[in-house]
């Protein structure tokens, strides 16, 4: 809504209204004042919310001997020793690969089975759809331990404990309720006449889903995919229970470093920053699709 002083776009009715009421001379300073206040507020909010990240970024670039001293040190020679240490003295590389593998596999499978299911739920009337939706809501709210502890027991019995397959499968199931719920709301926005038209033209239900629905659902599927990837990337509890050393993910690694001595603590900080930087880039790319995707009707409540 910020309009440069002196330029009044004819399309903006409120600006015209303002123009009639207020003195032309008083406008530039008031605009400037408002911009400054809003800008200051933006800076303050962002700075407050990002301060934990900024402080950690400082902590991990300090020399190890002053990284955690009290009173805190604000001036120092930046160094990347903690990152070098992390890379050389721990298995961080394999933890990072595990984390990515789990996130990718579980996202792909969650969408592969979730998209058709969500479509079916949005089109099939009757009690079974209602039941499944309510079940999805309850499953979404299920305490992780109620399913993860039995999974631990079962995965040991099946000899797949401590593998990326086991965590990926667990996460597909745990995140399935949320993804079909989100996707169903997207599908519900697409009028059913479209299905019927395509099928009258000779498509089978499956061809229609592949050629008409899925392309139309681009933003919806992308939104669901972003959420699935994020959830898998962040998951701590499931990985904590289902992994030991071979399939350990970065969040579990960071938590195990916390009770340790200073160099290891700073390594945990370095690992945190390595995990944080890509998700920040991710946040910038994702925000466009998330707002567009969510406002196109998925959160009618």
């Amino acid at each position: 809504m910020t309009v440069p002083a002196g330029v009044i776009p004819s399309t903006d009715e409120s600006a015209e209204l303002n123009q009639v009421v207020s003195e032309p001379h008083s406008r530039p300073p008031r605009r400037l004042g408002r911009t400054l206040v809003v800008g200051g507020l933006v800076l303050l909010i962002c700075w407050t919310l990002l301060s934990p990240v900024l402080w950690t970024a400082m902590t991990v670039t300090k020399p190890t001997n002053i990284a955690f001293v009290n009173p805190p040190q604000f001036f120092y020679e930046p160094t990347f020793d903690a990152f070098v240490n992390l890379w050389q003295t721990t298995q961080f590389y394999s933890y990072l690969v595990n984390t990515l593998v789990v996130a990718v596999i579980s996202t792909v499978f969650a969408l592969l089975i979730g998209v058709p299911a969500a479509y079916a739920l949005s089109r099939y009337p009757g009690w079974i759809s209602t039941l499944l939706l309510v079940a999805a809501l309850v499953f979404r709210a299920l305490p992780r331990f109620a399913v993860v502890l039995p999974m631990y027991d079962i995965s040991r019995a099946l000899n797949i404990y401590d593998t990326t397959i086991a965590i990926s499968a667990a996460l597909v199931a745990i995140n399935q309720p949320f993804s079909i719920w989100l996707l169903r709301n997207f599908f519900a926005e697409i009028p059913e006449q479209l299905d019927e038209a395509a099928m009258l033209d000779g498509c089978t239900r499956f061809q229609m889903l592949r050629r008409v629905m899925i392309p139309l659902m681009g933003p919806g599927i992308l939104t669901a995919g972003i959420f699935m990837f994020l959830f898998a990337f962040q998951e701590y509890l499931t990985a904590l229970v289902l992994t030991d050393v071979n399939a350990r993910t970065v969040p579990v690694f960071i938590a195990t470093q916390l009770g340790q001595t200073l160099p290891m603590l700073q390594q945990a900080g370095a690992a945190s920053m390595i995990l944080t930087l890509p998700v920040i880039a991710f946040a910038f790319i994702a925000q466009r699709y998330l707002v567009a995707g969510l406002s196109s009707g998925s959160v009618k409540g």
Partner: protein
Amino acid sequence: MRRREFAMLAGPSILVMAGLLLLPLYRTIQWSLQDVDYGSPGKFVGLDNYRQAFSDPRLADAVVFTVTLTLLVTAVLVVVGYLLAAFVNSLGRSKPYVLGLLLVPYVIPHIVGATMFSWLFNANYGGVVTYAIEKMTGIQVLWMTDTWPNRILIALNIIWSMLPFAMLIILAGLQGVSAEILEAAKMDGASPVRTHLSVIVPSIRGVLGFVALISIMDVVRTFDPLVPLSPQAVQLGNESIMLYIYNVAFRDGGQDLGLGSAINVLLILLIIVLLYPFIRGLAKEARMR
């Protein structure tokens, strides 16, 4: 849609949920009635585990702590999330960049965010916030070892990590409010505050309910943030129900799987009670369609 098509489309998803959610859940209920350990068949003991759970004051403490935390955080998320969303919505060209920055706390893994919080606050690690408070007031707040400061720290961390999501959902809702209604309110001479309270808030009621729903679901199950933020959770009385289950049934090869499972079942019942209004609403809406 024919029944066969429905079965083929929804089948894989239903199978996965049945095999990997329903079956483990059944196991948990079974274990809750047994004296059992991992990898060995249990012995049926009836309701003994439940009796033990109810006679343990730790459970009562964990429930009070968790429910209070949930209600407080949910209220803050709805109110502050709304204010933040309204503010971001009024921004011009800078909106995408501000939104990207504000989303950062949400995308950071919870355990990492909580670790960052502990370093920001804990004086033992040169926490700069505690240092600043001490400089200004002369009081050194013991965030990790005093019960109430620790509670505030935990609540702040959870609000911090969930606020972007609340804001994002409410923002999406705000963009759906029709421009005509807003114009009409303006013509009628409604003040900005009045417009928000009587026009915008009622028209995005559903969205605010959705934020409350997600917040209740997630905060009741708080686990990750407590690991870095409250190493002494048990002594301080800041143990969440999930952490209690973990301590009883898994930590250091925790032996009491039966008791842990019983608490799991009780937690599920608590969640169903808290979500009952939402479940009823959803069932009603689905039936009406």
